[in-house]
């Protein structure tokens, strides 16, 4: 263990052999970013390495200047004494997992990933590693996702029901990734237009520019005065729930799209009428399946309930432990 290729540092993982950090939360010299979600991508790094497909969203998050170096999926690039490759993680457009080859072995770091198909991004691509560092946001066996098609149909039926009742259908979902995935799925089934909250706009544009087929959209901010949105679908980020912005949607029905909606209490205490179970993360079976696909003999869990997954893998005869990346923030490292 003395020669671990990666160690927790700055809220992410530090590779001494290559002198770079993966998904650091604090400013560092050189960062490799798996994807542009806020818990992975932060401003202030001296140099950014990321995928070409993920670059527009990353620039929107951390600023667009000349510190960015983008790479194709599967392209090998050298950092220090290591060879680094970014593979599709299937999480959101341009998301990657990071493979690091060094004298001390081959390590894979997942960032966030999922195995279900998603029309807005490339599917997860596995590649053998000695050590697999896996996220486990949903690291308990209660998290098993229903088929995407079933969930999209539920969303559609709810929208239809709102149309019958002539009330607005306000659907909350994360502005980067989830919103576009839901839109792309709906576009395959209907050609009705969708209203967007302002925060969705730049990311939806970025997906369109990347060639993702999305339905027609209208901005809520540009709606005619007196528009009542009856029977219309509105996409908004979760932060808009309960804000004065919501007042324009009289008698609306609300839904939330997230893996957390698998648990009834999560939906009820947040007061959504409907919860739709659709996640951009691996569920429990997919976490385990991926460990097998990676053929790793050692698994390190990060992000989420790692104790359960590690305990389970250990009982299966694997070497497994949990790393707390957040704790590395207070180390001053």
């Amino acid at each position, binding site marked *: 263990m003395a020669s671990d290729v990666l160690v927790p540092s700055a809220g992410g993982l530090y590779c001494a052999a290559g002198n770079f950090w993966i998904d650091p939360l604090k400013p560092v010299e050189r960062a490799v970013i798996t994807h542009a979600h806020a818990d992975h991508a932060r401003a202030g790094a001296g140099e950014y390495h990321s995928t070409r497909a993920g670059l527009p969203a990353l620039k929107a998050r951390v600023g667009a200047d000349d510190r960015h170096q983008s790479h194709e999926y599967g392209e090998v690039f050298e950092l220090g004494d290591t060879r680094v490759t970014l593979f599709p993680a299937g999480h959101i457009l341009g998301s990657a997992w990071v493979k690091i080859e060094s004298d001390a072995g081959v390590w894979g770091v997942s960032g966030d990933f999922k195995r279900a198909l998603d029309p807005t991004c490339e599917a997860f691509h596995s590649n053998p590693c000695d050590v697999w560092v896996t996220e486990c946001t949903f690291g308990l*066996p209660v998290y098993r996702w229903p088929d995407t098609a079933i969930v999209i149909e539920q969303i559609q039926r709810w929208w239809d029901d709102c149309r019958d009742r002539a009330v607005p259908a306000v659907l909350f979902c994360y502005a980067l990734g989830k919103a576009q995935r839901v839109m792309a799925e709906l576009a395959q089934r209907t050609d009705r237009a969708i209203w967007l909250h302002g925060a969705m706009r730049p990311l939806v544009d970025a997906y369109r520019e990347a060639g993702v087929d999305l339905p027609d959209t209208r901005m809520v901010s540009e709606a005619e005065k007196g528009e009542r949105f009856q029977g219309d679908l509105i996409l908004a980020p979760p932060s808009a729930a309960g804000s004065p912005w919501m007042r324009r949607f009289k008698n609306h029905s609300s839904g939330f799209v997230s893996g957390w909606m698998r*648990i*009834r*209490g999560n939906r009820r*205490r947040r007061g959504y009428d409907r919860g739709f179970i659709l996640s951009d993360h691996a569920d429990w079976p997919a976490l385990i399946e991926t460990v097998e696909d990676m053929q790793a003999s050692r698994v390190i869990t990060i992000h989420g*309930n790692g104790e359960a997954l590690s305990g389970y893998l250990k009982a299966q005869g694997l070497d497994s432990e949990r790393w707390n990346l957040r704790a590395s923030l207070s180390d001053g490292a």
Partner: protein
Amino acid sequence: MKSFIALYEALDATTSTNAKKAAMVKYFAQARPEDAAWAVYFLTGQRLKRLVNTRELREWTSEYSGLPDWLVEESYEHVGDLAETMALLTPEPGPSELQLPALSVMVEQVLRPMADLDDEQRQAIVVRQWQSLPGNARFVFNKLITGALRVGVSKRLVTRALSELAGLDSGMIAHRMMGNWQPTAEQFQKLISKEHDQDLEDSTPYPFFLASPLEIEPNALGLARDWSAEWKWDGIRAQLIRRNGRLYIWSRGEDLLEGRFPEIEQAARDLPDGIVLDGEIMAWRDGQPLPFARLQTRIGRKKPGAKTLQQAPVAFLAFDLLEYDGQDIRQRPLADRYSLMKTVLPTQCGQLLLPGRIEFSQWDALARLRESSRERGVEGLMLKRLNSTYQHGRKRGDWWKWKVDPFTFDGVLIYAQPGHGRRSGLFTDYTFAVHSDQGLVPVAKAYSGLTQAEIDELDRWIRAHTRERFGPVRSVDAVHVFELAFEGIARSKRHKSGVALRFPRIHRWRRDLKVDQADQLKDLEQLIAD
């Protein structure tokens, strides 16, 4: 069961009361009466006698899902609801042509017979259901074998749905649902029948009328002379029925309190027939109320012994008359009902008391009198409009409870455990301690009073600062101080601290206070009135 599952999903899929009511009306309109009867039973919060214990269920879940038992435990702790955890961990059955059984068939032919079976047979039945029931049907099945359904509808809302369906006044439906109502097809048909009520059982109580808390100044209620005031007693709300030579005492929770309060039964034998009194059972001696803790020693006793009767004597304090000479008089004004009550009940007859109304002509004078509530051992005042009818449920307008301000103290959070229902999966049940010579000693458990944002923040903090786990309970670093309110305090041998608080709840998070600034046990002991 299929339409009942659909109803469950519809109720669960909305936060709107009207939408919930509409879903129930739709269900009851098409359900067969034998199924509708059971639906009423479960929706109004009733449950079957426990069929399996939760330890067994967790073992069976582990066996059936192939997951180690510790992982089932972790999952349960995370989800917070056993029925839901079991539904989530058991694999989804493949598509099948099999029809779900009707709700009444499920209850009468599968669930109820389980009570007479041994462990293995019960396990076989539960597993067979898991193998065949899809998604929410499996969840609802699990709910029925573990306890109450809890789907966010009140008994009152079920009553309103039935009254809309039947085209009858909801008070009449509520009345028919009271007492010994049984979930049978016949009883369901009676519930919504247009026929007038001739044949309710003698034991059937009237639906209780509940007061709402007064949140405004009383002079906003209008002229003082239009109102009646009484002390608000802190006991057990009860209805005393005298019909055809028989006596029935019902609690507000609709438990028949037969044999529990012999001194009240004794006194009530002298009442004329055809009488129903509404009132409060109090621990009472020498014309004075005893602390609620004393009454508590009586609540669980089905047949109190001589020593208990001596140490905790009780009385029934009557404050309303609902039936006189066999006639329902709830529609008569309170003032009339009150005068009639005086004619049937002298000021005292044994342990049956008529505490009487408080004379007042000015709101100000009443407010001053209310200040003396604590010394009198009462919770405050009840205000009732003199010309009001006796309604049912909690209807605002005519009955108000005007309580004195609660006691408060500052306590330290020391234990937390996950909550249930809408709080499931979050650490929301807290235990608070105060300082004593033996260090911090727990004095109160509370789970209400924080905002959702505070609950979320505290939940994250608790997870990060757990010291030890005892099953679902975690001990945490003693860091956070909270102001708690409570209604009363009494000595208690059952508590390590030696005191028991009544209705503790969280007032606010005192982020400004350090642990050593929290209260001392002796501060609390000073409030005990023996």
